[in-house]
């Protein structure tokens, strides 16, 4: 199968997926204590609905967003609320969090499955909303909002993002391989809520086993009128970025400042689809998370299913600690993830991986001046001029970079990845965007 791909830009980082792609998802035992930040989604922080010392059950809602954009947060363990206080957060510096001490005696909660086909669209949407599902690819956009597009947008295609183009990460790979049926059922649930018939699952060609597994399930389940297909994609970063993915699979270009439904498409992540499936069939809220723990800085690599709120130190302990070679800890992928300064950071809904990078895996050399090699321009999938943005920002003129399209930068990191001068081009773009917003306000 020849893979489709986006045309402009892109890079080929070393994949390092061999570290974890053969490892089955293993369930990590629940930790003693979980830290559940109130901000795990795009939108306003949730408000706690529990108080200190209150007892909560696994899966109970503990914080909600009532009016604004947001998603409900559920307790991931059975236990007692210990405190509600600021704690480190993987992306924001610090954030209010509900700390729950687990009751070691409580058994894990069991869910019963039912047939989702008997439910109406509204019921399905309601279950998704109640389960607090957000986009697990990274941005954390509340899924129930995404699944109810404005009526003007005539959505005709659902795209499942199985590209997983970030190096190291194998979460979606393992899910597709181990639970292909659930993923496809999930896709059908989404199709039903959207009232459309067509779904494309885009998978990069470096996961042939996942493609096979999905295809096998599809062959068996060809009886309903929904058409779900798997499309192989060339291995190229950032194949999994929304706009690039849509272009690769449908040939449609989402204009700058626009959203996928502007070109009649909705994109969902594989993990999100699995969560939707679990919410719709079992009414299980989102409080567990499959993530990749990888890198040569940790003793044992794994694809772990952990409770949301587990702090990194517990994960490290479970995997046997770090190695001496560890120089950097990153949540998320190595291209777009965030470096951690503390192991007290909890796993949140959007955490797709934790990387413990060894000295050979990351590059900490200081940056030099731009030599105008133009490699960043070639690498940029959006056709921007990152070098110019960098030079403007360094000269204190970040607000003048709109002409280079900096507002469309989604910080994929391709530019900085290829930059021979090791310039922090993504950071420059962020500063430029901030400057433009500040002056525009």
């Amino acid at each position, binding site marked *: 199968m020849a893979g489709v791909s986006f045309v402009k830009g892109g890079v080929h980082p070393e994949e390092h997926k061999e570290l974890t792609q053969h490892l089955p998802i293993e369930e990590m035992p629940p930790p003693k204590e979980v830290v559940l930040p109130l901000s795990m989604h795009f939108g306003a922080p949730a408000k706690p609905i529990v108080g200190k010392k209150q007892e909560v059950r696994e899966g109970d809602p503990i914080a909600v967003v009532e009016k604004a954009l947001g998603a409900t947060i559920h307790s991931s363990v059975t236990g007692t609320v210990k405190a509600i206080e600021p704690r480190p957060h993987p992306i924001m510096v610090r954030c209010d969090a509900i700390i729950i001490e687990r009751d070691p005696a409580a058994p894990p909660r069991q869910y019963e499955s039912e047939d989702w086909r008997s439910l109406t669209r509204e019921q399905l949407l309601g279950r998704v909303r109640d389960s607090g599902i957000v986009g697990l690819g990274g*941005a954390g956009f509340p899924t129930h909002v995404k699944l109810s597009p404005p009526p003007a947008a005539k959505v005709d295609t659902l795209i499942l993002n199985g590209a997983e183009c970030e190096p190291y990460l194998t979460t979606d790979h393992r899910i597709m391989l181990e639970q292909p049926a659930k993923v496809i059922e999930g896709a059908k649930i989404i199709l039903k809520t959207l009232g459309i018939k067509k779904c494309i699952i885009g998978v990069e060609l470096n996961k042939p086993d996942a493609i096979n597994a999905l295809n096998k399930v599809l062959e068996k389940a060809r009886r309903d009128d929904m058409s779900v297909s798997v499309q192989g994609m060339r291995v190229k970063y950032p194949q999994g970025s929304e706009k690039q993915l849509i272009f690769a699979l449908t040939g449609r270009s989402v204009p700058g400042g626009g959203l996928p439904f502007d070109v009649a498409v909705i994109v969902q992540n594989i993990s999100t689809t699995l969560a939707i499936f679990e919410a719709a069939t079992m009414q299980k809220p989102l409080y567990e998370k499959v993530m990749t723990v990888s890198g040569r800085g940790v003793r044992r690599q794994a694809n772990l299913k952990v409770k949301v709120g587990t702090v990194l130190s517990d994960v490290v302990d479970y995997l046997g600690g770090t190695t001496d070679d560890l120089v950097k800890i990153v949540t998320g992928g190595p291209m777009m993830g965030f*470096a951690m300064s503390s192991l007290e950071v909890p796993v949140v809904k959007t955490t797709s991986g934790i990387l413990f990078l060894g000295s050979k895996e990351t590059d900490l050399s200081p940056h030099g001046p731009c030599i105008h090699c*133009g490699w960043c321009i070639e690498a940029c999938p959006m056709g921007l001029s990152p070098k110019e943005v960098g030079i403007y920002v360094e000269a204190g003129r970040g607000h003048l970079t709109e002409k280079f399209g900096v507002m469309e930068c989604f*910080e994929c990191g391709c530019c900085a990845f290829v930059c*021979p001068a090791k310039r922090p081009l993504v*950071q420059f773009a962020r500063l430029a965007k901030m400057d433009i917003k500040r002056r525009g306000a």
Partner: protein
Amino acid sequence: MMSHRGLLINQKFTAEGGKIETQDPRTPEMGAAWAVSVSPHIRKGFTTSQIMWTVIATLMPLLLMSIYNFGFRALLLTLVSVVSCLVVEAISQKLLGRPLSFRDGSAVLTGVLMAFVIPPGVPYWLPAIGAVAAIFINKELMGGLGFNVWNPALVGRALMMASFPVAMTAGWLPSRPFSEAAVPLTQYVYGGLDAVSQATPLNWMKQFGLQSMIEKFGGLDKVYLDFFVGYMPGCIGETSALLILIGGLVLLGMRIITWHIPVSNVVTVAALTWVFGGDTWFSGDPLIGVLSGGVMLGAFYMATDYVTSPTLKRGQIIFGIGVGALTVLIRLKGGYPEGVCYAILLMNCLTPALDEWFKPARFAPPKQAPVAAAGK
């Protein structure tokens, strides 16, 4: 609010005065034991200094060739040039309060290239003067590496040419196989140059025409072969088209340069030499046009300088064509026998404009164009 943009909420805007904080300032009080920096966390292997040193490495065969051709003078001149470039860079960086950057190899590269485009018979102190212009005036005053508009090595050469025209136009040495009497190497080093000074093919062509040049250098076949291999009088590093081609192909293979500038440049020179270079139209000898003088060195090593050539491919092709056209124009109609240096310098003037005209094709830009940047 939990997008990536949230990252910057607590972050000071630190882009004032050209200094940028690359360290992520989150939770400084925690004193992290490991590196905290902004994404991406993995990098491609090539660094600026690796690029520079690779280019220098591909130039070394040329240096050996010129030592064989012109004697140890060539090596000494190159050394003087490199050392003076390094010294000038170090002094100016100290004066201007910048960090020393000799390790990145850019000054060494400038030094090597500058030595390669001067005749082998010039006095030893000459490259030092070129280095001041190339490094201090052209580069450091403009803000250091990456900000210069003109190719440093060529600015150095142009300045030497304007300041010491006699040395720069008469300092030719015969290439070894051409010197009838075997000149001992010591003579190359310790003077006695006047006795053996010899015109370059282009000088000869400018004065007596193509036919006479071919006769002087021993018949067309011999001319092709010798020029290709590099047995002709000329600048230290530009005689051997073969070695330049090999070096250029290595750079192309390593993707340090792309084909756009060299190919468009060489093709333009060949085409225009063919059309205008002869006694009548379409009777010029394109091969001689390309092989003589600095066309090859210019195309592969000078015009492809990242800093001073356009970044976009389309701009690069225009740039290459421009360099080629100006080279032929100056050679055939201008005041100098060789035009590569000035052609590149002139096109360097246009680089900022070419960069402005040729922007990367955007991935579906916003339908409503944003309000044009301030200043309109």
